[in-house]
């Protein structure tokens, strides 16, 4: 780990000012520490040698008092502002991480590195606070006060300076040596400790189960044993871990002691005067103090630095690019999936495999199939959220022939082919997804409700009149939910508000799809969390959508729902490797002149 990662300052621009402030206060502190030591020696020495009285030193004491006051103010200012660099850096990194993770897409988020993003973005990055508030200021003091005080000591008494300079490199040297020696040992112990600690918690968590089975008494002894084993393992680690602290303290105090003794004997020898001696004595511990503090805060800040590194790795993962052409009007465009296959991320299957589908304006198409066949994945492909492993998705405006569509899909930039909204078919990959999504309302299996009022959740950023809201609520059965809420549409839901059941959330999402002015409505298992009345609700909603002339893509398996569809397409999965030539261009072959 680098002491100060330049990427941190590069990514977190707003934090720079406060890091600079911290550095400035560090230099000021160095000057004040040195001034305090020199002034103290200047006051004390003449009085001890009997050459001065109170009146002679009073102005110097006043100066010393001023230094003390300024030093207190600087310490306060450091604490007052140090956290600002932390909060700003954390907020900036968090926003970048979340925005980039969202851009990487749902499939990436479901992968192993994606699952940790939520923890990284919340608790992980919060661990940067000790780094900015404790570690970084001390690090800056270590590079200002330590060399500054050492330089002054050198100017005063080169022998003392040499003693200190000789011991300083020993500090990091011994830290590294002991760290190397203990690392493997500590890691093995840590594993044992984590395991033991977990077993105790496991017994506590399982206590209700043990009680229902009447077997709760015995494990107390086991908890005791595990606790003792945990202690023995931990103490073994600590005995070694504290060694580095001991060596550090031993080195620093012993060298201060050696400086004091050396100064003493040179005073006796007359080669040094008292004022210099006192100044060196006061300055010597100040040289070591920041180094000791850096060591103390190093571990506390390590978590935050590790989180930052993780964040940088994530931010450097390239996001998939997307098309730029505007999507054609879906009221006059058929979405065509040809031979679409998607390799499942965790299993050795294609789900869906070789899916063909045509979604013409104003029709209702249902996707049926077993669990895991890839119905929801097919929806993601159709919406442009997930590129298919194989096959094509094209947007074919009315009047365009299948042949033109396929040719366009095969060679999007072919000369002479009028691509785009003025007639020709367009590959979905070339389309700016935002322009497509503007025409889509999607109700996924577990709809997300942002914190806000129920009205916000249904209107979803649009201005919708109460009448339209009421009609939608009536169709979806949300009116029954509303009747139970005293504040009606203005009830706050989500964080800090009323919790809604999955069935209720589904009704909210269905209402949202109804009021949304979107041509294509995608409903993924709309009855999954609804009871028998719920099914009637969905049937009513489908009828309402069809009456409005909308295009509906429905994922369903209940027969009543499938009966509503104009076309039912069965999605199947198949093991990979069955297909000898997975990218056999069957479609484009058919149109070759």
């Amino acid at each position, binding site marked *: 780990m680098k002491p100060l990662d330049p990427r941190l300052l590069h990514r977190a621009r707003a934090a720079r000012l406060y890091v600079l402030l911290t550095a400035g206060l560090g230099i000021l502190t160095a000057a004040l520490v040195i001034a305090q030591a020199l002034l103290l020696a200047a*006051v*004390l020495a003449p*009085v*001890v*040698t009997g050459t001065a009285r*109170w009146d002679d030193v009073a102005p110097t004491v006043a100066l*010393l008092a001023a230094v*003390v*006051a300024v030093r207190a103010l600087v310490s*306060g200012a450091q*604490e007052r502002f140090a956290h*600002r660099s*932390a*909060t700003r850096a954390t*907020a900036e990194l968090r926003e970048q991480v979340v*925005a980039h993770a969202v851009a990487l897409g749902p499939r990436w988020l479901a992968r192993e590195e994606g699952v940790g993003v939520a923890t990284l973005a919340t608790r992980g990055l919060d661990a940067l606070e000790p780094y900015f508030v404790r570690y970084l200021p001390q690090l800056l003091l270590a590079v200002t006060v330590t060399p500054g005080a050492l330089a002054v000591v050198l100017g005063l008494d080169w022998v003392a300076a040499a003693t200190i300079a000789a011991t300083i490199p020993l500090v990091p040297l011994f830290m590294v040596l002991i760290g190397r020696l203990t690392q493997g040992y500590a890691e093995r112990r840590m594993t044992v400790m984590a395991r033991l600690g*977990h077993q105790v*918690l496991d017994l*506590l*968590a*399982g*206590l*209700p189960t043990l*009680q*229902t089975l*009447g*077997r709760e008494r*015995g*494990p*107390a002894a*086991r908890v*005791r044993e595990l606790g003792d084993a*945990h*202690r023995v393992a931990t*103490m073994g680690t600590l005995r070694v871990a504290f060694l580095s602290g*001991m060596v550090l*303290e031993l080195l620093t*105090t*012993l060298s*201060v*002691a*050696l400086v*004091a*003794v050396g*100064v*003493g*004997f040179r*005073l*006796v020898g*007359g080669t040094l*005067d008292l004022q210099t001696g*006192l100044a060196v*004595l006061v300055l010597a511990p100040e040289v070591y103090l920041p180094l000791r503090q850096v060591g103390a805060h190093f571990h506390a800040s390590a978590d935050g630095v590790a989180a930052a590194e993780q964040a940088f790795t994530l931010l450097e993962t390239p996001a998939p690019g997307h098309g730029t052409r505007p999507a054609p009007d879906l009221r006059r465009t058929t979405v065509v999936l040809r031979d679409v296959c998607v390799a499942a991320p965790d299993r050795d299957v294609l789900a869906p495999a070789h899916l063909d589908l045509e979604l013409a304006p104003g029709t209702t198409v249902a996707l049926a199939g077993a669990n895991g066949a890839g119905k929801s994945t097919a929806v993601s492909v159709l919406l442009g959220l997930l590129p298919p492993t194989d096959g094509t998705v094209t947007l074919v405006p009315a009047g365009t022939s299948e042949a033109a569509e396929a040719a366009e899909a095969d060679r999007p930039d072919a000369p002479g082919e009028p691509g785009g909204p003025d007639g020709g078919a367009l590959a979905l990959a070339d389309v700016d997804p935002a322009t497509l*999504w*503007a025409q889509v309302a*999607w109700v*996924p299996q577990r709809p997300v409700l*942002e*914190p806000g009022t129920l009205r916000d959740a249904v209107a979803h*950023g649009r201005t919708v009149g109460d009448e339209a809201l009421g009609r939608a609520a009536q169709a979806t059965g949300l009116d029954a939910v509303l009747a139970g809420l005293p504040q009606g549409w203005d009830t706050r839901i989500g964080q800090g508000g009323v919790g809604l059941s999955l069935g209720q959330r589904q009704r909210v999402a269905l209402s949202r799809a109804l009021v949304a002015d979107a041509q294509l409505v995608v409903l993924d298992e709309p009855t999954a969390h609804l009871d028998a009345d719920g099914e009637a609700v969905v049937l009513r909603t489908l009828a309402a959508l069809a009456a409005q002339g909308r295009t509906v893509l429905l994922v369903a398996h209940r027969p009543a729902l499938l009966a509503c569809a104009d076309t039912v397409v069965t999605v199947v999965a198949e093991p990979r490797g069955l297909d000898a030539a997975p990218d056999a261009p069957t479609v484009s072959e058919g149109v070759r002149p």
Partner: protein
Amino acid sequence: MSPRPARDVLRRDDPLRRAVALLEVDRRRVLLAVLAGTAGLGSAVGLAAVSAWLIARASQMPPVMYLTIAAVSVRALGISRGVLRYVERLVSHDVALRGMATLRVRLYERLAAGDAGALVALRRGDLLARVGADVDSVGDVVVRGLLPVGVAATLGVGSVVLVGAFLPEAGLALALCLLLAGVVAPWWSVRATREAETRSAQARADMAATTLTLLDGAGELAVAGRTGQMLGHLRRADRDLADASDRAARPAAVSAALLPLAIGLAVLAALVLGIPATTAGRLAPVELAVVVLTPLAAFEAVSMLPAAGVQLLRSRQAARRITELLDAAGGEPSPAGGPVPRGGRGQAAGAPGTPEVDERPAADGARDAGPARPGAAAGTLVARGLACGWPGRAPVLRDLDLTVGPGRSVAIVGPSGVGKTTLLLTLAGVLPPVAGEVRAGGDPVHALTRSAAARRVALTTEDAHVFDTTLLENLRVGRGDVTPEEAAATLDAVGLRAWLDALPDGLETVLGADATRVSGGERRRVLLARALLGPAPVLLLDEPTEHVDAGAARVMTGLLDGSLTGGRGVVVVTHRVTGLEAADEVILLDRTGSVRARGRHRDLLGVDPDGVEDSDVRAAYRSAWTAQEQES
């Protein structure tokens, strides 16, 4: 909430005091740690004082032999500091770890001895999930809270006495400055922490919720064009968070400024008081150096007190959660932490590595009735006029009569949330009945001890725990002497033969933390096997075939027709009506928690013309049944 945790700790009923009492710390070890810590930091003070004397005396150019002792002590003090601090840290951590181990045992014992119903309620909250961190936090108070206070107090007194011996008024000034840094500064620190916590809690929760919404609903938000809006929401939440920590930084800044101010004031006071005293001849010039320079080192111990104050605050919050847990479970903790009435150390007899339990019937008197009373129908469970619900809340189910005995099976069907699980907890004696009674083997089941009740009725809840140990040990939780052969045969019977064969170490495979390596359906079947291997003549099963996709109906039939259970009495609770043909009785609950209909499956379906007369009931049951038949 008072801003003075230190003061509150003095109250006897303070949660931290109660929790620390449960640590049962060894006072001699604490004393040793305080002594080592004081001597360690005292070495630093001594080093400053002696080297100040040495240098001041040396400037008078005495014969070198007068300085030898001082020079040797300076070097010795330079070494002793590091060594003594090492000893202090080891001893204090040992004390804390011993205390944490004891606290965990006490907590376990109290919870085990406490009211089972309360514990089931707690399991639904996150109290138990947090308990590990809370125990650590209470243990930390020894090392990071109490010990620094002890060391700072002893050392502070020592330094004041040392300086005061040379010049009493300088000693007094030092004492005042130490109080400024050791009491006033920590007070501001604690205030800052409290401020940060109260103000930022909402902002932090907002930030976390927004982050999760953005990540979980990434696709949906993108399609709906709301990603940018939500990112704006995140930015606002972060700004609120920044504002909260900015406000908390003000008292923190005061605290940070006070330490250098106190040190500076102590030095200035020593100069202002000492110089005239030297001129007046009351203080030797060499002693003036000691009086002025000692304070520079005397503040190291108090400089740790702001952090110690914050630790006291944090530990106190953890202690409050722990004592709430104990109070809710009903085991009244005695401040001395003595043995608890039930489940105490003396009865512990577990084999290492397993949640193993003693099989001996505990001699608890009448509550532990042992085998069923002669004369009463052994192995029967009878409920009469039963109403059940969580204590202190309105009952969810009313007027239920139910009889289960050898060879008789009952299926209870109803919509989710109607209180089926509550009913099972009441039938098992975990919750007391709100009205009516439940008798197992002739005795009211709630009045029996847990182990006696469990020998008559065994409950497997939906969220029953799979322990982080081997598969075989998990099956032995129900009965300690299950043989590997029995275990394999039962796993086969519940349809896990292929799964068992695929496990790397067979029955010795470790199942991982709360069975994360096991799918939902496999977990259900393991729990079912555990229940089947148990000794009780009546089994209560909560949704035993949920998530069991393939063969769910076959398992349900086997449970209900007695072929899986060996003819034991069975109560199954489910929200699906698939596979209930074999039940001796199906009880259909409606949304209000009343019995809507009861009878055999075919009666309810209306196959038998003499069955249930209410045609609405028949229609509802039939529609539920046909819908699920088609799905599966």
